[in-house]
């Protein structure tokens, strides 16, 4: 099924968009010989994704090989009988998202993306206080201060530094020509920040779960509050005490009190220096990858960053930049939002869209025994395999996708941008990119398979 029709002829594709992370780099050159791809300028993730040999895969129903038509019929039979079908994974392009939304709407199901937990760290902030954000090209050309928070960007997004931080040229003479890069967090790979525009690299190696304390301190300093010394407040819980005491205007320190020497292991002077750089920046950016913010209540950490940004905009320009967005997550959230008003975790059980970011978390629903069938779309990477569940499962997956259990129905599907054309939304939720058909295989798109299942209901 994955063998290629035109044999071993070699084709070279330029300006190829990579579907394997939320940056959607679109400057790849990919050469295809038969069904083998070679990427000449991809990051490790892209190279692994494009060059992964596609194992042979057949549609399966209860572990028996069937035709595509039989698999679609079996899937339709399962969906038809379900009272509350769950549509998860959602790792696909916009056409795939549209198809998921259409069948979920008709069958009164629930939609949620496999990586929603990360996205909700941001969405909770948007839906409570909003934010000021930037996008990749804006940051590449304009930022003179880039603070990376708690996210090992170089590992997660292999070309972020090459494409955003390090490029030699800026659109604007004298703007963002020299930039400071600050890494806030322990164990972050700082080796990516190099090049003629990177003037200074600063690292504050704070443990991930204590990043909020350092952000609090920066927040207090940019607001002009002093940070009390530990002994000046509650000595045994100086951490918490120092975090909040300084935020109360009445508690502004008398000069007699000594400043704290450190916060979460970071010397106060270093924190103060970062705050000063923030205030002096012409265009500063706080960068995070939501999936990496695994500290408890990470949305509070995102909120703290957005509040720092908000404060700094009173005098200068500052913005946030959220990365992440792998496995088509921004495509899923955007499509669901424009079609229902809500960013995923929507139930159509009553015919109309109902939104509850806790209740309609499909991971939680499966654990609690809610829902009676799981339709799982994983057309991009191999890592977002099917969650463990007792309910019947229908997987539309890229061949080789890791599955913790054998699904009731498995239908191999193509990857957008490799096996079929499409469109995907980038991590900044502004830019979307065309995905090329590189003709690696004849695998159907998840959109086509879902439409066929819906038509067979």
């Amino acid at each position, binding site marked *: 099924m994955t063998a290629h029709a035109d044999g071993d002829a070699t084709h070279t594709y330029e300006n190829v968009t990579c579907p394997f992370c939320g940056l959607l780099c679109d400057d790849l050159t990919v050469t295809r010989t038969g069904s083998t791809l070679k990427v000449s300028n991809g990051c490790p993730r892209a190279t692994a994704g494009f060059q992964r040999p596609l194992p042979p895969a057949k549609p399966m129903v209860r572990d028996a090989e069937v035709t595509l038509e039989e698999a679609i019929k079996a899937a339709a039979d399962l969906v038809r009988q379900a009272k509350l079908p769950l549509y998860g994974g959602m790792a696909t392009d916009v056409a795939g998202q549209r198809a998921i939304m259409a069948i979920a709407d008709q069958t009164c199901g629930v939609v949620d993306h496999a990586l929603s937990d990360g996205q909700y760290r941001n969405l909770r902030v*948007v*839906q409570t206080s909003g934010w000021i954000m930037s*996008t990749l*090209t804006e940051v590449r050309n304009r930022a003179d201060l880039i603070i990376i928070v708690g996210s090992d960007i170089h590992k997660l997004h292999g070309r972020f530094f090459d494409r955003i931080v390090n490029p030699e*040229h800026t659109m604007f003479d004298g703007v963002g020509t020299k930039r400071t890069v600050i890494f806030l967090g322990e164990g972050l790979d700082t080796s990516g920040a190099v090049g003629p525009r990177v003037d200074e690299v600063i690292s504050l190696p704070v443990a991930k779960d204590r990043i909020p304390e350092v952000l609090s301190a920066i927040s207090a300093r940019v607001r002009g509050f002093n940070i009390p010394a530990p002994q000046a407040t509650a000595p045994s819980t100086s951490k918490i005490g120092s975090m909040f005491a300084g935020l109360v205007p009445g508690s502004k320190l008398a000069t007699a009190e000594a400043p704290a020497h450190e916060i979460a292991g970071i010397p106060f002077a270093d924190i103060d220096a970062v705050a000063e750089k923030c205030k002096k920046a012409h265009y500063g950016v706080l960068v995070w990858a939501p999936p990496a913010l695994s500290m408890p209540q990470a949305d509070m950490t995102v909120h703290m960053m957005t509040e720092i940004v908000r404060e700094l905009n009173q005098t200068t320009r500052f913005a946030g930049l959220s990365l992440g967005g792998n496995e088509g997550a921004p495509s899923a959230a955007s499509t669901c*939002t424009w079609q229902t*008003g*809500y960013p995923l975790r929507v139930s159509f059980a009553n015919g109309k869209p109902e939104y509850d970011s806790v209740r309609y978390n499909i991971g939680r629903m499966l654990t609690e025994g809610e829902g009676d069938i799981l339709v799982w779309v994983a057309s991009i990477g191999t890592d977002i395999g099917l969650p463990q569940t007792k309910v019947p499962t229908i997987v539309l997956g890229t061949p080789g996708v890791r599955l913790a259990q054998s699904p009731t129905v498995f239908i191999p599907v193509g990857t957008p941008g490799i096996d079929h054309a499409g469109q995907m939304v980038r991590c900044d939720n502004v830019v*979307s990119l065309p995905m090329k058909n590189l003709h690696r295989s004849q695998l159907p798109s998840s959109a086509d398979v879902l439409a066929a299942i819906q038509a067979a209901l």
Partner: protein
Amino acid sequence: MLIKLTGGKVYDPTNNINGEVRDIYFADGRVVPPPADARVDKEYDVRGRVVMAGAIDPHTHIGGGKVTIARTLLPEDHYKDEVAHTSITRAGTGHATPSTMITGYRYAEMGYTAAFEPAMLPANARQAHMEMGDTPLLDKGAFVMLGSDDYLLRLMAGKASFEQIKDYIAWTMHAAQAIAVKVVNPGGISAFKFNQRKLDLDEKHVYYGITPRDIIQTLARGLLELGVTHPLHVHGCNLGIPGNVETTLATIRATEGLPLHLTHIQFHSYATEGDRHFSSGAVQVAELLKKYPHISIDVGQVMFGATCTASGDSMRQYNGAKNADPKRWVVMDIECDAGCGVVPFRYRDKSFVHALQWAIGLETFLLCDDPWRIFLTTDHPNGAPFYTYPHLIRLLMDRDFRRETMLHVNPEALQYSTLPSLEREYSMYDVAILTRAGPARSLGLKDMGHVGPGARADITVYKDDANRERMFTTPELVFKNGELIVRDGKVIKVVNGATHVARPEYDRAIEKPLKEYFDRYHTVRMENFRLSDDEITDGGRGEIIVQPTRARTSS
């Protein structure tokens, strides 16, 4: 199949038909002349009914990132208006920023068959078209935003040849699949990124050294010479600032004979009289416009209630964020190309400021005596959601209703507006111009906005009800391309409309410097920045219609 609408009172200003009783025939999606002896396949008796072309909204934010940000921002706005699916329609949500399908259904149920997104950022064009592609029943199109994008500003600052600037404007229209060009706070969105907090008409951008006046004149002249039918669509400087009427008057004078469309002019017609230094400037604007027949406007009428403002004007939206209700807002700097700001808002009838905004909008409608140069908009969702149009129409057509409504708004505000003294009532013919013939002519949609032979059979039939709000809320029949899609105000069939674009000529050689520019500075390749036809039409999402442009000229 030949369909006949028998005996309706037809209002078709394009063809000078003012309420005359006419039969209308259509076949294969087009209006046809009365056939001599053809067999009518289906006849609708519409005697006593009012017949018009399907309505056209020339300025409504229905697609693109800022609308979806607004949707994300306000789940509680949707809770009160969740819509269940039916056997033919999809589920969704309504109120201030309806989901895409609901947008299509509700426009059609109100007798509209076309709507144009006026603020498509080039960097976000693909998503804007995706969203419009999920908006059924309507023909649509979009105005691409220029004027704070680095490439135009650097061309202007570098004194590039005017032909090159025109090539770039035209290239952008092709790349973004646009029918027109809009400028929003000219240069100001860019200036905000350089930490300028305001930019007056003659104030220099700190980096490029050019002024909003330069930008407006360049784009307006460029579009004229490119032969694009719709003139530059201008969201001017200083939106919402008391005293900005002076900027608006200066902008009108700055056109020096060039055609221009000034959008949501209500938000730009504020004077500074009275104790609160806030009063109506509508009279001055209307008077000056009489001397500038090449300038058209739309109003951006404010209606009372909760909505969400969504604009490309990040500078002014950031400033307005302090009034957000609820206190939650988004501002974005986008791709060295544009920006956006999304701020929820509640207009209150007892508020002096909001009541005055409301009055200024109505004043503008009633003072502008040429209905061909004024379009009915609320700048959805900025002044109010689009489905308040029937109420607005009643306010214009029914003086007694208007007077009664005025009793409920802040009385002090009315002292700073001439509204209470205005007696004018819009006629049915006027309304047909405002909502059909005028927008069609302005956008160059020759076969739309009328029901003469050759027109697309987009036709709306209303019961003639003295309560004009009720009448325009629930049309009896709506046809889209000859198919009956709405009966008694409910969608009965779902079809996809077309996407309208304009493609003025340009010299392909511009792609060489553009490609170098994209490769050097951008995170998207020029080749991928361009949106292909297939991306819009794939999946049966409706055809692309290329509207003609006049021959390119040079001055």
